[in-house]
Each structure stands twice: as structure tokens, then as C-alpha cells.
């Protein structure tokens, strides 16, 4: 009779354990092993989500536990969706998301394409380029406030040097029109290397023989780029967009350090606004409804996007 893996495993199992689990079905044993994970998942993810949904229909305030809780139906949702200030923060977030992803994809892909060409010092340049993403967002936000300082800031000086504009005549984080761009610039500076690395992985995964075949077919470099490089890197690029989109939708630390959401509420992104509602104003019920709206938005958009990504991969 052949000795199966199962038999060998059974023999290797210490006797007390074997005795203890003897009599249990395979399904029951599977449950025993999976149960701790499921319990953790329920405790850490599912229960808080259900609890948050429950709180979103109340006027609960976590700092006023003695005050009592009243169910107020959909009032929180109604207030949020009709609040002009919330829509302004949504707009600020959309502006931040769109432009950061646009610039990061554009610059990240270009850098990856350049780095992918073999040249002397290639590895050194790669290391230098990825340095910003190794820093803490809070530190980055903090030191860019100095770079943007109108009187002593390097950024203003450089802009002034090349444009002839007086460096102290404009304020990147103090001006309503420039502040939204100031956070876009910093996030792009910090996270473009991430997009570059993913694109680089995509570029290096393209087999050389495809280009060689194209060369034989006398396809121009331009045509090779659009018909080979771009389609084959696209799934990687879309993945990078997904990561950056989710990350930037919940952007908090960098922007808080950089502008604090100001001037006024110009750069107050939804996550900053939500934090203020939940942990500064302590409107827990209201903030729960706000969080659920954001969750549904991100989840919905991400699901559509992932479907699109899968379709691109299947091509």
C-alpha cells in the first residue's frame, strides 16, 4: 500500500494532539484553525463597521457619554449631503486627487522610461529619485513649509530666480489660489518615485524579443512605444493609480503639517474635515455618517476601477 502525504502527516502528529483532534471532521478542524482569524476580522473590521453604521443614525457624542443617545434617522446624512462646506472639501479633495495622480503618472512614467534605458550611474539615480518616498509625510510637510516661506524659502527663491518675480511677493501656502497647488506639488514630489518604481517593474517585464520582432517588422520607435510599451505597462500604471488614489483620498498628515487645511478651508481635504468633526468637535454620530458616505464612495469607485483593471489585464 502506498504511503500518502496524509498518512505521513498523521504519523508525524504528536500523539496527544492526534488524540485530541481525533473524532473531528476535516471541516471542523478547518474551522478550528480559521476561527481565530475570523474572530479577529469580525472584531477589528466588521463589528466597528456595523457599529459605525448604527452610530450614524444617532446624535451620539463620544465625549458626552452621560448625555444619552437619540436615534435621529437619516438626519446626519441629510445634513452632510446638503452642507455646502462639505461639498467644498469634496471639491478640494477631487482637485488634489486628480492633479496629484495626473502629475505622478506623467512624471513617474517618464522617469521610469528614462531609468529603464541603460546608462552609467543608472542605479545611483534610481536610489536618489526614490529618496523622498522614504521620508515621513509629517517631516516632508514640515520642511516644505520652510521651503515655501516667502522670505527665506528656497522654492520662492528658485521661482523668483527663473521668473524674475520678487520671491516675497507670493505665498504658496498663504494664498487661496496657490495653496491647493502647493499640496499637489509636495505630494507629487514625494510619491512620484513610487509610481516610477511600479512603471519600471512593468517596463522590465516586457520581453526584449517583442521589440526585436517589431524591429524586424520595421516598426518605428514611436509605434513600438504606443503599441508595445504602453499597453504592456498599462496594468501596472493602473495599479499605481489605484494605490495613489486610495492613499490620497485619505491624505491627512502631509497636508495638516503643510497648510493645516488653510488658508480658510481651501485645502481642507475630507479626511481632515472628518477628523475635526469626529475628534475635535466630537460629533460622533455625524462623523460616523460622514465616514460611511466616504466609505461607500471609495468602495464604489474602487470596485468600478478594479473591474476596469481586470478587463485591461485580460486583453
Amino acid at each position: 500500500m502506498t504511503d500518502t502525504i496524509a498518512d505521513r502527516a498523521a504519523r508525524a502528529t504528536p500523539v496527544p494532539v492526534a488524540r485530541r483532534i481525533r473524532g473531528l471532521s476535516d471541516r471542523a478542524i478547518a474551522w478550528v484553525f480559521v476561527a481565530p482569524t475570523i474572530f479577529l476580522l469580525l472584531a477589528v473590521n466588521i463589528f466597528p463597521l456595523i457599529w459605525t453604521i448604527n452610530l450614524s443614525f444617532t446624535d451620539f457624542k463620544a465625549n458626552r457619554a452621560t448625555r444619552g443617545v437619540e436615534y435621529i434617522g437619516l438626519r446626519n446624512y441629510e445634513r452632510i449631503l446638503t452642507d455646502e462646506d462639505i461639498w467644498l472639501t469634496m471639491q478640494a479633495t477631487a482637485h488634489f486627487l486628480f492633479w496629484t495622480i495626473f502629475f505622478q503618472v506623467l512624471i513617474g512614467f517618464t522617469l521610469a522610461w528614462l531609468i529603464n534605458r541603460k546608462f552609467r550611474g543608472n542605479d545611483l539615480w534610481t536610489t536618489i529619485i526614490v529618496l523622498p518616498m522614504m521620508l515621513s509625510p509629517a517631516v516632508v510637510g514640515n520642511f516644505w513649509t520652510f521651503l515655501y516661506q516667502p522670505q527665506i524659502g528656497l522654492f520662492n527663491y528658485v521661482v523668483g530666480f527663473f521668473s524674475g518675480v520678487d520671491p516675497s511677493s507670493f505665498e504658496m501656502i498663504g494664498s487661496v489660489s496657490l495653496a491647493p497647488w502647493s499640496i499637489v506639488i509636495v505630494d507629487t514630489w514625494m510619491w512620484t518615485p513610487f509610481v516610477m518604481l511600479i512603471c519600471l517593474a512593468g517596463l522590465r517585464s516586457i520581453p526584449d524579443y517583442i521589440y526585436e520582432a517589431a524591429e524586424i517588422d520595421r516598426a518605428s520607435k514611436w509605434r513600438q512605444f504606443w503599441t508595445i510599451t504602453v499597453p504592456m505597462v498599462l496594468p501596472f500604471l493602473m495599479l499605481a493609480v489605484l494605490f495613489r488614489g486610495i492613499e490620497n483620498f485619505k491624505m491627512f498628515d502631509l497636508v495638516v503639517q503643510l497648510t493645516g487645511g488653510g488658508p480658510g478651508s481651501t485645502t481642507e481635504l475630507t479626511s481632515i474635515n472628518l477628523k475635526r468633526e469626529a475628534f475635535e468637535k466630537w460629533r460622533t454620530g455625524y462623523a460616523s455618517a460622514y465616514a460611511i458616505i466616504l466609505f461607500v464612495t471609495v468602495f464604489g469607485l474602487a470596485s468600478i476601477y478594479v473591474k476596469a483593471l481586470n478587463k485591461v489585464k485580460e486583453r
Partner: protein
Amino acid sequence: MTISRLLAATAVTTIALSGAAAAENLTLCWAAWDPANALVELSKDFEAQSGHTMNFEFVPWPNFADRMLNELNSGGKLCDLLIGDSQWIGGGAENGHYVKLNDFFAKEGISMDDFAPATVYAYSTWPKGEPNYYALPAMGDANAWYYRKDWFARDDIKAAFKEKTGRDLGEPKTQKELLEIAQFFQGREIDGKTVYGAAIFTERGSEGITMGVTGALYPWGFKYENTPGKYDMEGAVNSPEAVEALEFYKEFYKTATPPGYTNSYMGESLDAFKSGQVAMGMNWFAFFPGLYADPVVGGDKIGFFVNPPQNQAGSTLGGQGISVVSYSEKRDAALEYVKWFAQPEVQQKWWTLGGYSCHVAVLNDPGFKDSAPFAGDFLEAMGGVQDFWQEPAYAELLLAMQKRMHDYVVADQGTAKEALDALIEDWTEVFEDEGKL
């Protein structure tokens, strides 16, 4: 013999252990700033006298409210004693975070009459003015101004000012004079360096711009309600005087502050002044001892003045009372600290070290006014202080004002009237949620 020795040894050990248990390790929480260092020094006397040891948890001002209110709301046991902001008293009392001290004061013979009435009202009582005490006035404070006395004394600058304004350069007597002086210094060359008018509060995240704006609102006669306790804000919060004061503050920000001064509070004001960037600076009295001692801009180079009046005298109240946190497991030792701190001789030393005592024995001392160059101004300011809402929902009220003021003053959105109208809407919503309207 052996048994009796054993019993004796057990008795000695028991006594020793019970003595050790009585010596507690107390934690006092406060903001990280100059007076906190003075308190560490002062508390060494308490440690020597009581046998307790003191630990300190000092949090930088921008995060102080966040950190401490989270601590209180979660029933945390980190702080046995808390020197919390005056506006927290309502929440501290109603949410059960602070121990009510009436019985303790009565038992220990601590009288609130021994402390300046304005400070007792602001730092200790809830509901306001009622004899329910949740804190002992610990640190009197108000918003005031410092200026470069050496620049004000220079003949060339005095002449230029006289030529420009037709009056002598000196400490401003009104808010409008204050602005005029600041505008005079704005962009001026002094010793080959461009300087600016004044450092004011514009910070968005915590309480900065509200504390700055109220420095203009109060002298114009701003009131939170038409009738105290009725929450009837229409016509009070957005009165013509309030609108004028807010427009004034915006003009101040636009025409007399350093470039890039969009998110500045106490630290930035100190930096701007110490670096010789501004002629004047708005800040809390708490920083004045340290500034006076500064080797570069202190001593003869610095002068101080109370927030100038306009339609009336008015200064923004700062300062805090010391409370015993109800979640502390060392309540007796914490109360012992409060009892020790309330003593007149301790209060006198507190002032000497750089803390602002609220004890009348210190403030009414004939030598007090001359004990420091800013002592007289402090007394004057404390006579005209006004505080923000001290309601349990103070955080919501404060954040609404932060937003509306920053939107108008710094982000240039809408008019002053619109900003104040919107503020009334925000505050009305909060009071409706609270069931007070």
C-alpha cells in the same frame, strides 16, 4: 525569642510599606511653555515637603486641547492633576472629568475670596458665576503686546513717524493707533534690514485666530449674547461694532504683518519678535518673563502694553485653573498638591519664578506693580478680560469660529458681516443640538 523577633520584623516592614504606599507618584498635565518650567521648579518644594514625587506631562499648545480632551473623554488615568484651559471648565464639570472642590476647600479652609474675582469666575466656576468650584485659579493670563522699545526711542524713527502721522511715537492708546504704528513699521528699513509691523495670531488648527480676532472684537464691545445665558446671538455677535472690529483685524493682517504670516500663533509671534522681524507682537503674558530675559531683544530693548481699548477696554482671557482629575487613583495626594499650591507663600514664589499668580496676597502687594516691567499691565489687563464660550460644547463653538474667521481674514472669502452671520448659524446649530435653543 525567634518568634518575637519575627513579629517585630514583620511589624517594621508593614509600617515601612504603608509609609511607602502613602508617598505617591503624581502626574501633572499642562501645556509645554515657559510657565511649565517654572512649575517644575516650584513643585520641588512640594516633593520635599510631602514625600510625593511629581511627574509632568507637557504637551505643545497646538496639540494640547486635542491630547488632553481625548485623555479626559476616554477616562484616562494619565493625569492626576490637570491645568486645563479656562474654556474646558464647563465640559470638565458636566462630563464628570473634574472633581468638585467645594467640600475640599471648606475642609481645608481654602477661600476663593483669596483669589482675584475675575480669575475665580473664569477658571473655577461652573455654571459661570455659581459657587461650584472645579479648579483653583493657577495661572492668570491675558493677551497683550510687546514692542521694540529701542526702535520706538530712536530719533530718526520718531521723526519719521511724526512726519507721517502728526503725532509722537509711543505705546498706542487705541486699537487704531496700534494699527497706525504697525503700518508705519511695515516694510521699513531698520539697520539695513526690512522689518514689519506686528506679529498677530492667524493660526487655523487650534484656537489661534479666534484668540487674535477677539483681541479686536472685545475692545469694540463684542458680546456673545444680548442677554447672558439666553443664547440670543443675533444683533450681538454680528453687531455693527463687531463687523467693524473684524474688518479692522483683517486690515491689520493684510497691511501690517510679515509676508507668509497665514498660520501663526504664539510660537511664530515669539520667533518673529526675537529675530527682529517685527516691531510689535501679540502674545500671552505668560511669555513676557522669558522675553524680558532674552539676551537679544529683552531688557532695555523691549516694552509691554496692554491690549489697547477702542470703544472700551477689553483683553482676551488666557490662563488656567488647576483641577483634580476624577479618574485619578491618587486623588488624596492630588488634593494635597492643590492645598499646598493655594498657600500665599507658594503663590508668591510662583510669581517670582515666572508663573502668574491669581492670589490677592500677591496681586495686592504694594510692590507687585514694580516687581516686573509687565506686572502693572497684567493687573490692568485682568481688570478687563473677556473669555470665549465656556460651554461643554466649547470645542464645536471654537472650531466654527476658527473656520469662519480664517475664511474671512486670511482666505479673503465674503464680508465681515457674512462671516459673523455664518458664525451665528453655526453656533445656533450647536446650541440646538445641545438642547439649549
